[in-house]
């Protein structure tokens, strides 16, 4: 069905559509309307048990923060090894697909841990982060990162990597590093704001 509908380039067309849709969303009223519609969700989050626990027991919140940091170190390790290999900086005598395949499992586990601990913390400070621009930029970067890994980087490396343009691999590595740096840096900034 895809092939009939989107011709020979379904993936490229989908990426283009996501970009156009994203820009339209960002530049029109849709962004503000969606944001307003999400308020009840964030109010509800503060009332959930993770929200209540976070607000009642500072020590629990602090330990979840530490868990989030440890998962970040693991995720960062997986990302840096994979993108470092794409950029030709590290483990050069092992093939690109091998290094990326090997680090992917760690990536998935640490991402899961980050999202679980992240949601827990967000429940504790839901109404604070709701009003922070930097929180939404972080969510945007995070969604972009997950999309980039599963929809762009992995499918690309399932192909014939050895005959691929090395400049393209570098570009993908740089873009991936930029995304995950932004996720981490905006995340830290949530703590400084508000």
């Amino acid at each position, binding site marked *: 069905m895809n092939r009939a509908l989107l011709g020979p380039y379904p993936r490229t067309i989908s990426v283009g559509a996501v970009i156009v849709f994203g820009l339209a969303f960002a530049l029109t009223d849709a962004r503000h309307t969606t944001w307003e519609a999400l308020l009840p969700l964030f109010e509800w989050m503060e009332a959930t048990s993770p929200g209540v626990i976070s607000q009642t027991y*500072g020590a629990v919140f602090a330990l979840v923060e530490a868990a989030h*940091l440890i998962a970040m170190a693991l*995720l960062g390790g997986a990302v840096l090894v994979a993108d470092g290999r794409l950029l030709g900086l*590290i483990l050069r005598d092992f093939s690109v697909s*091998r290094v990326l395949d090997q680090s992917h499992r*760690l990536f998935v586990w640490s991402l899961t841990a980050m999202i679980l601990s992240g949601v827990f913390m967000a429940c504790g400070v839901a109404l604070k982060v709701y009003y922070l621009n930097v929180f939404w930029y972080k969510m945007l970067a995070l969604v972009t990162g997950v999309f980039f890994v599963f929809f762009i980087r992995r499918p690309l490396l399932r192909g014939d990597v050895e005959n691929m343009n090395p400049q393209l691999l570098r570009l993908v590595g740089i873009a991936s590093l930029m995304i995950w740096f932004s996720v*981490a840096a905006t995340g830290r900034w949530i703590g400084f704001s508000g």
Partner: protein
Amino acid sequence: MDVFNQLIYDFAAWVDTHQWSTALHESFYVYNWIESTHVVALTLSLGMLFLIDLRMLGLAMADIPASTLARRLSLPMFLGFTVMIITGLLLFYAIPVRSAQSLWLRIKLVLLFAAAINAWLFHRRLRTAGQSWDTAVKAPVRLQVGASLSITLWVLIVICGRLIAYDWFDCRAEPSSFIATLAGCIADQEQF
């Protein structure tokens, strides 16, 4: 212990008289960027360290020879730790007295010392362990013990590091005399 605490307090109070220390503390952006760098550099330092340790335990990158991975990731890891040390010292410099009397920072420093000894022992064992097991999923038991210990110590170090930000045991919160001695509180101190 009291003499030791007094010495540390005097040193921190002296650092606190530096103009740059105050400027750094009061500069919202510079201070926060240093702290962000300290946190984000965890991905390089601990990211590489955890990968090496998990490889020894057969939990990650099993398809890459263990000692090769350990060797190759060492450079970025040390790069990360260098950034951590520099930014860590700057963070101390910005808030010297409170940091010097932080129970968590004190525990963290002891754990860091333990982690350093463990790392030294680990590398010595790695050198003498030969290469026969290199492509096996798990490293020899002696190295696995070192790797597990390393992961445990660093998890505790991160927890202590994060807890420095909390003021539960600050001197001005007047903790019990036992905690106050451990944290290095001085009787009738004027500066915090």
